[in-house]
C-alpha cells in the first residue's frame, strides 16, 4: 500500500519535470534556432538544404556583423550611449524622488506621487504624435538626446515607485539619527541611506535597462538616419531581403543574437533581483 502511493508520487514528480523540461525547451527554442542558423554557411539556409542542425560550422557570419557592417557598430554604440545615460539619470533621479516621497512630509506629497504613478498605466504610445511634435519643435528629432530625454521620463516612474518602497522599508530611526548627529537631509541621504539601499538601485537600473534596450516604436518614429538609430532599428536595416543579391539570413541571425547578449548577461548576472523588482513594482501599490 505504502509502495503504491510512493510510486504514484514518483510518477507525478516525473511528469511534472517532463512538462517543465518541455516548457523550457519551448522557451529556449528561439535561441537554439537562431544559434543554429547563425553558425551555418549561407547555402545551408535554403529550404532544400536546410536542416534543424547545421552540417558545417562557421563563424563567418559573426565576423561579418562585427567587421564588415560598419553601421552595426554605430547602432550598437548609439544604443549603449542612450541606455547608459538614461539608466544613470533614472537611478539618480528616482532615488532622490523616492526618498522625498518616503521621508519628507511636504504638502501635496501624496497627490504628486499618485499623479506621477497613475501615468504608468497610459502607455506612451497614445501620446506619440504629440511627443513627436514637441521633439520636432525642440529640434530634437533624429538625435540621441531626443531619445535619451523621453526614455528617462518613461521609465523614471517605475523607478520612483520602487525606490519609495525601498526607502519605506528602511527604519526611519537610521536617518533621524544621522540628522540629529548634524547631517543635512542630503547628507543623511548620501552617507547613510545610499549604502543600505544599493540593491534597490540595482533593481531600478535593471528594470529601466531591459525595456529600454528593446524600445522600438519611439525610436522608429523619431530617428531617420543611422547616426541616431539604436540597435533595435538597426535590425530593420539588416533584415534579410531576397530581393537583394546577397542573402544575409545567417548574418541577420548573428546580429539578432548579438543584440540579445546584453539582455541575457544582465538577466544571468542579476537573476534574483528580477523577482525582487516584480514583487516591489507590481504587487505593492
Amino acid at each position: 500500500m505504502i509502495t503504491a502511493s510512493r510510486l504514484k508520487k514518483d510518477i507525478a514528480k516525473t511528469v511534472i519535470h517532463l512538462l517543465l523540461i518541455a516548457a523550457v525547451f519551448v522557451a529556449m527554442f528561439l535561441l537554439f534556432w537562431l544559434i543554429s542558423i547563425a553558425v551555418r554557411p549561407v547555402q545551408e539556409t535554403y529550404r532544400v538544404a536546410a536542416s534543424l542542425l547545421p552540417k558545417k560550422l562557421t563563424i563567418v557570419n559573426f565576423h561579418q556583423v562585427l567587421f564588415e557592417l560598419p553601421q552595426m557598430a554605430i547602432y550598437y554604440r548609439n544604443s549603449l550611449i542612450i541606455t547608459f545615460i538614461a539608466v544613470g539619470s533614472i537611478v539618480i533621479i528616482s532615488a532622490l524622488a523616492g526618498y522625498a516621497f518616503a521621508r519628507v512630509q511636504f504638502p501635496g506629497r501624496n497627490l504628486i506621487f499618485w499623479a506621477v504613478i497613475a501615468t504608468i498605466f497610459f502607455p506612451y504610445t497614445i501620446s506619440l504624435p504629440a511627443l513627436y511634435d514637441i521633439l520636432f519643435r525642440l529640434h530634437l528629432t533624429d538625435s540621441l538626446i531626443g531619445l535619451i530625454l523621453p526614455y528617462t521620463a518613461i521609465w523614471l516612474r517605475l523607478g520612483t515607485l520602487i525606490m519609495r518602497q525601498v526607502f519605506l522599508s528602511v527604519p526611519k530611526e537610521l536617518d533621524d539619527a544621522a540628522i540629529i548627529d548634524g547631517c543635512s537631509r542630503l547628507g543623511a541621504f548620501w552617507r547613510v541611506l545610499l549604502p543600505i539601499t544599493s540593491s534597490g538601485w540595482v533593481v531600478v537600473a535593471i528594470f529601466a535597462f531591459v525595456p529600454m534596450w528593446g524600445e522600438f516604436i519611439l525610436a522608429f518614429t523619431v530617428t531617420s538616419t543611422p547616426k541616431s538609430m539604436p540597435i533595435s532599428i538597426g535590425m530593420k536595416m539588416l533584415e534579410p531581403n531576397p530581393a537583394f543579391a546577397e542573402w544575409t539570413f545567417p548574418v541577420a541571425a548573428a546580429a539578432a543574437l548579438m543584440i540579445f547578449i546584453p539582455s541575457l548577461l544582465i538577466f544571468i548576472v542579476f537573476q534574483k533581483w528580477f523577482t525582487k523588482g516584480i514583487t516591489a513594482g507590481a504587487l505593492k501599490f
Partner: protein
Amino acid sequence: MNTLFRRIWKERSGYAFIAPLLGYIGMFIFLPVVYTIVLSFTRHEFLRPTKDALVGLVNYVEWFHDPAIWETFKNTLYFLAMYIPAHVLYGLILALLTNSIVNRRVATLYRSLLYIPVVLPLPIVAYAWKWMYDPTIGVFTHIIEDILGLSFPFKGWLIDKRLAMPSIAIMSVWQYSGWIMMLFLVGLNNIPNQLYEAARIDGSSAWKSFCRITLPLLKPTFFVIVIMRLAVLGITVQPLIMTEGGPGRATMTYGLHAYYLAFRWGNWRMGYASAWYVMLALFATVLGVMAWKFLREESVYD
C-alpha cells in the same frame, strides 16, 4: 494659510528632491498627454504647411463614422481573445508546476529559464519569429512538411489571412507567459500554507483546494495582470514589424491604424490620430475601473 506656507517652506527640501522628476515627467509625459487632447480638437496635419485650426469635435465625429473603427476593433479583439486567456492560463500552469517542486535550487533554475523570453528585446524577437514563420527559410514549415512529412494547408503563417493574427498571438504568448508566471508565483507565496494543511486535514482533494483556496486568493494577482495588460489594447509593434497590418488588413489593429494615420498615410493626420488615441485611453480607463470594481473589492492586501 500661513501655516501651510510655513510647512511648505519648512519642508522645501522635499520639493528640491522631486524637482528633477517633475521636470522630466512634466516635459515628456504630462505635456504630451495634454497636447494629445488639444491636438484631437485640431486639424493638425504634420506635413501640411498651413496653420492648425481648432475644429471642435470634428475629429470625434469622424471617428464615430469611420468604418475602420469596427474593423480594427474586431482585429484587436480577435488578438486579445486568443492572447490574454492563453498566456494567463499557460503562465498559471507554469507557476503551479514550478511551485510544486520541493528543491528550491531546481525550481529557481526552471523559473529563470522560463523567464528568459521576457527579457529579450521585443523588436528583435518579433523579427526572429517573422523568420521562423517564413515559408521558405522558416523552421515551422520546415518541421511540419520536411520532418513530420505532413502537408501544411496554409500558404504560410504571416502571409495567410486566417493564420496571421493567431501567429502574432502565439509569439506574444511565448514571450510574456514567463512574466505572468512570476506574478502568479508572488501571489502563490502570499497564500498562507496553513490553509492548505487545514483543507487536507478536512479531507479535501488537491483539486478542491485549488478551486476553493488558490483561485480565490489569487484574485489580487488577476487584478494586477488585468491592469498591467490594458496596454495591450493598443498593440502596435508586433504587427508593425511582422506584417505591417497585412495580409490585406487582417492584422491591422487599432493601435497600428492610429499609428499609420499619424506617421505614414497622407499628410500625417496627427490631429485625427490623437482623437483615436484619446478614445483608446478612455476605453482602457473604463476597463480599468471595471477591473477595480470586480476584482479588487475582496483584495486581501492593503
